[in-house]
């Protein structure tokens, strides 16, 4: 898994008290999210970070939403063929 830490643009669906990232653009690629596997939060001072662990096809991504900056970041990514 690679640690990325880059700002990204994200399309998000807000429905019934949930925030669901739908797709995002990273390095000129549009990546459509198939499944949100886990969501968790962390804090730093008064900032709350929402971490979304996602699958897009066979690839794994973790997105972070900063509620103070109202900004999205790609925290980590794991793409390509899986090792056995």
């Amino acid at each position, binding site marked *: *898994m690679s640690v990325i830490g880059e700002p990204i643009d994200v399309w998000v669906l807000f429905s019934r008290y949930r925030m669901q990232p739908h797709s995002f653009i990273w390095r000129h690629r549009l990546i459509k999210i198939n*499944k949100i*596997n*886990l969501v*968790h*939060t*962390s804090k*730093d*001072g*008064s*900032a709350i970070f929402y*971490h979304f*662990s996602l*699958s897009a096809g*066979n690839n*794994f991504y*973790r997105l972070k939403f900063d509620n103070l900056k109202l900004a999205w970041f790609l925290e980590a990514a*794991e793409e390509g063929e*899986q090792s*056995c």
Partner: protein
Amino acid sequence: MRTILHIDMNSYFATIEQQANPRLHGKPVGVTGGDRESRTVLCTASVEAKKLGVKTGMMLWEAQKICPSITIVPGDSDKYLYCTTKIIDIFKSYTPFLEIFSIDEAFLELPDADINQAATISREIKARIKVEIGEWVTCSVGISYNKLLAKLAGGLQKPDGLVIIADQREALQILDQVELDEVCGIGPRIKQRLLNMGVRDFKTLRRVPEEYLLASFKSYGAILYNMARGIDETPVKPFYLKEEVKSVGHCHTLDRDTADPVDVKQILLKLCELVAYRLRRKQLKGKTIHLWYRSAFTPETAALRLFYDNGMQTTLNQSSSDGWIIFQAAWQIFRQIWDGGKIRMIGISVSGLLPGKPANVSWLPEDHRREILAQTMDKINGKFGDFTLHRGTLLQSVQIRRKPNPFLSDRRFKLL
């Protein structure tokens, strides 16, 4: 008769990581301790890794030697604490008599339920965990009439088990089949002492008179006597009863072994500031300062993988929650006990805790200034993050974050 559930999340941290990243499904995974990637041990191994012989507490190199295909994932304590909070919310919806034993274990007492109803509730809890946390997350549940047997039952079938010990007849049957140290409360030392007495199993233990056990183990002998008979009267300690905090501490594994006193001083000051901040948050002050360090491996100890620890404590004239005062005491201890060799880990804890308020008012203007400075720094750091504002000497210091241990200690209150 009581009805008690023991719920144990299976290979918890590893399972959560596998839930987050499906590419890890079905693979041997090891999660490191302290959210580190090196110079640490495995705090959890996945079910798949355990089947291949990997054990919790192994050094990374040991795990990789046994299982070269293991994927090592750095721990993420925020993730596990968040999931635990959600899991506890599920438990709370069934009973207020909930004891949080650790980050991944809990006891639930169901006063109005019989064994069959408890089994139904257990299946419901398992299903809700799959829906509300993740489909890869499982737990083993033990049901019985006391905590001892509920925990024993829970450990009999892993992962995703549900085992009932309905009465004392069943309890004795199961106790006679398990090893002495499979029961919570009998560790390697007590087991060895029992073996030395010729007690190899619970059947034999039941034949030992209570007076003999009391003479050999003092008051613990009564507990062993009851254990052998499946008797345990300990209550489920409800989560809403906050336990008294006995000490507040921090330790840190250095990124590189060092014998540079400037490096050690910076890290120790940071640890003391963290401890002091936590004391002030809890409105506590402490009088006893305990400092310890772990030496780096030497050629002699490296071969045996033996760590050498050294520590000492001192008592302040007055209780304090001031980081600088705690640091001065800790640094004095360090200078006394340090042999000048390279250090791998250093830790500080403050005990002899008293309420911080009402505080004795000091007439010294510098004490008053320090208190105002600490309050101001706490407000700013509470809003913008740890060490946003800090002493100038810490400008170049390493980042140190609080990491919960699996038994949660003082962070228990943050889950509630």
